[in-house]
């Protein structure tokens, strides 16, 4: 049954990808990308990667699509010409694809528990991490502790993206005399938004602190919390949103999150461990691991929330200025 669903989803992905290749209407292309992202998230669920599915849905179908739509509102929705050069790209792509197919032919078969991938490093994560780290969610254990250095890098990547977008587009100024703009005539939307936004934020907090036990963690929580404010900005207008969450504050928060993460690592120095060794943070190693993971997940959550929201602010302020002109 699972195989059948998998096959069906893969088929739908293929159709969506072809749509992206051939369509000229960019609005449709971006929407198809959103669908593509959701379908991939479904595949991830089907392949047992619930954390990844969660993130893909929030990021790919959520943030990326919103940013693409924001860009389209500034650049126009029609691709004017294409097909001016198809031969060379086609040649490159067919060669690359053929190389990949060649590579798959003696790959370990799909799903086989005897594959090398499941034999070596992963065994310890599956067998020992619940005792060593004390968390049921192995993905969180590996992400935050065994490979916590990767995740520190990932936080730095998010911070770097925020720096890049800020330097390119700038942040909007906080407007003290802001009045409601946005969707003026949609009373229903406003009422619904007012009910739903607190719930989204509550959910974000749940995802942040429950990531040790179920799917979720700082990254997903940060994106969801940012989505709540983005929804607010869409319904009530950007100026009002910048009053609620100030752009200057976001910049500082994005920096603070990275510092909190790296600072936790440095704290281990002083307690006699290696960088990011949480065992030394408390008398009991498992309690130390737990404390360390909570701290660094908080750092991730803060940076991701602040970076994603300031990136959205930067795009939205450009779009808004264009509408006024």
């Amino acid at each position: 049954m699972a195989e059948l669903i998998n096959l069906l989803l893969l088929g739908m992905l293929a159709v969506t990808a072809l749509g992206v290749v051939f369509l000229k209407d960019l609005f449709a292309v971006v929407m198809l990308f959103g669908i593509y992202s959701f379908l991939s998230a479904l595949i991830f669920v089907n392949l047992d990667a619930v954390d990844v599915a969660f993130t893909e849905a929030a990021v790919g179908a959520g943030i990326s699509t919103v940013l693409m739509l924001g860009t389209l509102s500034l650049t126009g929705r029609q691709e004017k010409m294409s097909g001016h050069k198809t031969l060379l790209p086609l040649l490159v792509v067919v060669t690359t694809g053929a190389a990949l197919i060649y590579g798959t032919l003696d790959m370990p078969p799909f799903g086989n528990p005897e594959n090398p991938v499941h034999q070596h490093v992963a065994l310890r994560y599956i067998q020992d991490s619940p005792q060593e780290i004390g968390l049921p969610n192995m993905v969180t254990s590996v992400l935050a502790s065994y490979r916590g250095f990767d995740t520190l890098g990932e936080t730095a990547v998010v911070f770097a993206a925020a720096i890049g977008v800020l330097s390119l587009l700038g942040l909007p100024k906080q407007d003290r005399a802001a009045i409601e703009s946005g969707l003026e005539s949609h009373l229903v939307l406003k009422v619904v938004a007012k009910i739903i936004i607190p719930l989204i934020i509550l959910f974000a907090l749940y995802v942040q602190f429950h990531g040790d036990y179920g799917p979720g963690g700082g990254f997903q929580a940060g994106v969801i919390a940012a989505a709540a404010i983005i929804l607010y900005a869409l319904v009530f207008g950007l100026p009002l949103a910048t009053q609620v969450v100030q752009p200057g504050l976001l910049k500082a928060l994005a920096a603070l999150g990275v510092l909190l993460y790296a600072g936790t690592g440095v704290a281990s120095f002083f307690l006699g461990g290696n960088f990011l060794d949480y065992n030394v943070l408390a008398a009991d190693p498992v309690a130390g691991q737990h404390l360390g993971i909570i701290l660094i997940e908080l750092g991730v959550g803060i940076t991701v929330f602040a970076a994603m929201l300031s990136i959205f602010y930067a795009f939205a302020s450009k779009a808004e200025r264009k509408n006024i002109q």
Partner: protein
Amino acid sequence: MSVIVDYYNYWVVVFLMMAGFYTVIAANNLVKKIVGLNIFQTSVFILYISMGKVSGGSAPIVAEGITTYSNPLPHVLILTAIVVGVATTAVGLALVVRIKRAYGTVEENEFKDKDDLI
């Protein structure tokens, strides 16, 4: 037959990757290039997650009565890769917005100066 059962997943993924890759290099519009880049990357994510699957396994969260778990490591790697992907997308799109303002176009064939060709 067994070859197909073993590898069909990877083959579809290769097709998806190449669809994205083709869009990146052949598209004329810069936004569409970024969409292509995203499709390309997302397909690579499916490749990784596919290799982490164990038949009959379940999500790597300890639960009673479950003995077989899928491999958590590819999941962790791809979580990181997704974040890298969205970061690149954000910077790329911000560049597109600035290019539109500086040149008045985001269509590759409309850049007049040869130096500006992308």
